[in-house]
């Protein structure tokens, strides 16, 4: 049942990926300027320029270019970076592990800490704790990552000297970026967990669970938690893509290598193939996240499993 459901969801990704690829391909051409400007030496003639444009196939019809590009993608051929003059696949392979480490840790951080905080605030309903949580959630969902990053650097790196200001050497360099990206996630996950738990507590069946003689702890962990997890899983799954995307500015501020840094550099140089590859990876992450979320939900809730498959 769950396999069938997963397969159907995968099929639905085909038209979605197609639309996304068109958008990603076209959007870079809407940017003013082109990569050739970065390749030309001082004093080059318009003829030199035309020659380079032709060499990279940029003089062809956009539709033709799109199909060449997508055709290459299907063969796993990401092409050659125009400005960086290296295979795009190499660039991505070099940077992706950094992004995955950072994103993975931030994801782990926001899900565990967020769910713990949310559960505590739902179970211990104390006015002071409530006010603290509300303030925390407001901050977490409004403070922009790059600004928080600067504050953290100023306090922990410059003033206290606990962590390096930037770079990617050893685990200490991961702490601040993970905190920065995870902060918003913690707040969001805590809020969703709290609301979902309180909602679950109000369900009719909870009365009967108590009437069976189950202890409050058992009811919380065996019955309420699974219910609360349904919306939390959805949020977390959407977060997978969001974290990679959100890492773009944070990586830049901390001067870390990664997909985000690569993307920003490539954008500055209008290095079309690199930009397209990075965007495609991010889009894939979002789609994969959504898919994982849907499948996880279906595996937890028999009602969804039946309705949609």
């Amino acid at each position, binding site marked *: 049942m769950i396999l069938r459901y997963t397969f159907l969801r995968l099929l639905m990704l085909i038209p979605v990926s197609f639309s996304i690829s068109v958008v990603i391909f076209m959007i870079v051409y809407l940017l003013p300027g082109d990569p050739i400007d970065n390749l030309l030496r001082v004093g080059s003639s318009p003829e030199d320029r035309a020659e380079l444009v032709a060499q990279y196939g940029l003089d062809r019809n956009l539709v033709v270019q799109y199909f060449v590009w997508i055709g290459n993608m299907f063969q796993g051929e990401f092409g050659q970076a125009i400005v960086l003059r290296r295979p795009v696949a190499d660039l991505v392979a070099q940077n992706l592990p950094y992004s995955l480490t950072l994103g993975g840790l931030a994801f782990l951080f926001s899900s565990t800490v967020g769910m713990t905080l949310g559960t505590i605030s739902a179970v211990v309903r104390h006015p002071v704790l409530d006010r603290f949580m509300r303030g925390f959630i407001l901050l977490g969902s409004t403070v922009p990552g790059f600004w928080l990053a600067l504050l953290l650097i100023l306090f922990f790196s410059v003033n206290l000297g606990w962590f390096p200001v930037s770079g990617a050497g050893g685990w200490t360099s991961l702490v601040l970026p993970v905190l920065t990206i995870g902060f918003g996630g913690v707040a969001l996950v805590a809020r969703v967990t709290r609301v979902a738990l309180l909602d679950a507590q109000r*369900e*009719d*069946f*909870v*009365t*009967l*669970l*108590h*009437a*069976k*003689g*189950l*202890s409050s702890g058992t009811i919380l962990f065996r*019955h309420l938690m*699974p*219910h609360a997890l349904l919306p939390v899983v959805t949020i977390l799954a959407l977060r997978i893509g969001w974290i990679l995307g959100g890492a773009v500015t944070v990586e830049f501020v901390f001067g870390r290598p990664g997909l985000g840094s690569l993307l920003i550099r490539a954008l500055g140089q209008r290095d079309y193939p690199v930009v397209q590859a990075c965007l495609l990876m991010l889009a894939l992450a979002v789609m994969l996240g959504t898919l994982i979320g849907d499948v996880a939900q279906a595996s*937890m*809730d*028999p*009602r969804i499993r*039946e309705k949609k498959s």
Partner: protein
Amino acid sequence: MLSVRDLGVAFGAVEPLSGVSFSVDKGETIGIVGESGSGKSLTAMSVMGLLPLIGGRITGGRIVFDGQDLTSLPERAYRKLRGGRIGLITQNPMTSLDPLQKIGPQVDDVARLHLGMNANEARARTEEILGTLRIPEPALICDRYPHQMSGGMKQRIVIAMALAADPDVLIADEPTTALDVTVQAQIIRLLDDLVKQRDLALVLITHDMSVVAQTCDKVVVMYAGRAVEYGPVETIFDRPRHPYTQALIACIPRGLDDTARLTGIEGTVPTVINYPKGCPFHPRCTRAEAICATDPPDFSVEGDSAAACHFAEVADAQSA
């Protein structure tokens, strides 16, 4: 087996329940009747010790079960009684089971918790009980999820849960209200059989006078958080002394005579914050006089039954 004396319940400053008394023995069924908002479900929650769950507390009176007062029982000991010796059947079977779990484990819980059975023994017991409740193919049902079953079937599962640990008392809070009429009759008959076969004490909470007439030995009529009349079912139906009881009985539809109109009771049950002074029923009562609006009536006891009405004796005189 179970006796409730002068029970009062409060939520903060409001007191939606006061002075409720009844008792029930093994093999006996007591009906608690009244319209919605009369405090029937609160009575059930009080006996189950689940008031804190909805933010209420017991302000007075005693709930004595098997010789011990439950109002002062610590939570840990109460948990052993709940589901173990006192079973609860709730109103809406559609929402009373955990939708994310299969039927089997939800029923197994009770035997594992109260009879100390392991998973296999508990499952065997679950299947046996489902069988006695006339549920076809119990093993198959155990593997189903709640949303795959009908309301009547789910209510049987809830009953099975209440019975799994062989309790002494069963509290059924409007067990048929959410069900189809045809299924209602089946469930009521099932409960009736269970009382006889297992020597259960059943507290049947309902707003349906005809159900009371069919199944109960005794009845308590509640209105606005108070008991207004109680007694053996025959006495109450033959000679109701409280105008509210009379009105409820008059509301039972009878026969196919198309000249007969269905009767109702004018007005609605007052909400907790608007409980009237004097007799709580006087604004809707056809017989009310000045005294009813000022003095709360005492119970006028006659034999096993009693009615809280200033004019209970007048009713006796008329029916004599």
